[in-house]
């Protein structure tokens, strides 16, 4: 069954979009990532114009993260104070990212920047996480504790920088500077690549700040909810590229998928959680690497612009 999308201006199979968004919603609920980094390339692959894909996915991510935020909030696994710091830094990063985006577009190298950053970012982060997850599993098999326990009084140097704040829910007492820097970087990357950035935020908070996984996921979802709500309104205002019908379809699949994902997350132990997330991120990176390194069968591409000249 097909439905015509008024803004994307093409018909699309309802069942296929529901299935796709359901699967991505499941992953999003499972890992606490927005899922935009999976859904946006998939929609572009289905011939939906990139601008429409990015803007509409923002709306979908806002919806599916709402469900996650409510779930984690009820389970008291959401640190609003940490979330506030992340949102504030994220806004600054987004502004810088949009400026960089426009600069690259003027230079005509935007597409290369996007592909290259996808490849490097995803393969490096995915590779590091995979290495770490495998090492932890190997430790467990060898009969040692999965990770080195955090001992009282020891912490990485960046947590001891000035302006220390106490985040009760996250069991964290650390300097605001590295957290805000992380948020700025994520806002920047998010604006350039059109993704929420949860896939960077979640591992960074786990590895660099050793915050409990459940709180990380809930807080990351909160940050994603706020930024994606803003992004949807901005996209609708500036380039009218939000497709309401596509958004409804993505939301239907996404929120249901996210529910099951959230449930599955509770039955998943930390080690396999990290291994799976690592594999997922790595495979997206490799997918983009293939595009970059393999000779294309059709070297030409056509972009239809709005004006006539």
């Amino acid at each position: 069954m097909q439905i015509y999308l008024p803004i994307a201006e093409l018909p699309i199979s309802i069942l296929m979009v529901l299935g796709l968004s359901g699967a991505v919603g499941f992953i999003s609920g499972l890992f606490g990532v927005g899922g935009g980094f999976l859904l946006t390339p998939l929609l572009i692959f289905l011939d939906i114009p990139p601008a429409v894909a990015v803007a509409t996915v923002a709306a979908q991510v806002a919806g599916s993260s709402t469900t996650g935020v409510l779930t984690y909030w009820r389970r008291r696994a959401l640190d609003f104070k940490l979330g506030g710091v992340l949102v504030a830094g994220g806004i600054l990063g987004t502004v810088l990212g949009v400026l960089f985006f426009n600069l690259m577009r003027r230079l005509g190298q935007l597409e290369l920047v996007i592909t290259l950053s996808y490849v490097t970012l995803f393969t490096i982060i995915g590779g590091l996480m995979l290495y770490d997850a495998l090492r932890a599993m190997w430790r467990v098999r060898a009969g040692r504790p999965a990770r080195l326990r955090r001992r009282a009084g020891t912490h990485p140097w960046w947590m001891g920088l000035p302006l220390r704040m106490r985040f009760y829910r996250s069991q964290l007492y650390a300097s605001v500077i590295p957290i805000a820097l992380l948020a700025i970087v994520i806002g920047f990357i998010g604006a350039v690549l059109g993704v929420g950035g949860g896939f960077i935020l979640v591992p960074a908070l786990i590895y660099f700040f050793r915050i409990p996984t459940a709180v990380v996921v809930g807080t990351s979802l909160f940050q994603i909810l706020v930024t994606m709500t803003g992004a949807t309104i901005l996209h609708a205002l500036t380039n009218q590229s939000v497709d309401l019908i596509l958004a409804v379809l993505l939301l239907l699949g996404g929120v249901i998928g996210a529910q099951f994902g959230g449930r599955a997350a509770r039955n998943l132990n930390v080690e396999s959680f990290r291994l799976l997330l690592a594999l997922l991120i790595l495979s997206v990176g490799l997918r983009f690497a293939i595009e970059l390194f393999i000779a294309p069968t059709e070297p030409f591409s056509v972009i239809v612009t709005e004006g006539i000249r």
Partner: protein
Amino acid sequence: MRHSLTILLLATLAALTAASARAETLIAAMSSHQIQINSNYTGDQLTVFGLVERDGRTAARGDPYDIIVTVRGPRRMLLVREKERLGPIWINRTQRRFPDNSVFLAVASNRPLNEIMSEETARRERIGIENAQRLPDPGLDFGRTTARFKDGMIRILAEKGLYSQEARGVTFLSNTLFSAPIPVPATAPTGSYEIDIVLYAGGVPLARQSTNFEVVKSGIEQRLATGAYEHSLLYGLATVALALFFGWLSSVVFRKD
């Protein structure tokens, strides 16, 4: 001597008649002048009907009639890029602009174009997918590179069903009555489409006729599209409200604990 003079006279007369006998006229009609896009729109098809009308003085022709129908869709600027190798990676390096270029192009004829006319004639008459468009900056930079980019563009748009050439797209129902179905794919842009119908005999154009149709959004599709443009903020807020509502609803519906 006298005999040959008569032949010469007859030949001149015949030539004169042929020259002045643009006696054929084309009459064309369309099954519809508007395609409306509603929510279950998956493309549509229009039919062009035509009649070759001859008046009494029209000389009988040795060559059969040929009909070529060209449909040109809304014009946009097309940006064509080519991926090239740079070290180990493939990136877009060169690009060409094709301003004022139809996004939709369909050419239908009753038999293959190369049987109807020579290549030079086709170029001059702007017949066929390759010739139907004006070129960017004619004479200025139309080199082999631009030709390559143009071929690439035609190939990609043909794959998407936006460019098509049907060698058997026009059917003669009688000696003078013909019909041509024009399939319009769902991805064809909204806007106005021009149809040019030309009657040929022996590679010579005898008569022309043009008509048009438009593709428009209707109903909910049209209201959403205009809403997105005319009330951007409201549209954005409504989308967000809907998204948050869906998220909340799902957490209520699926709540177990």
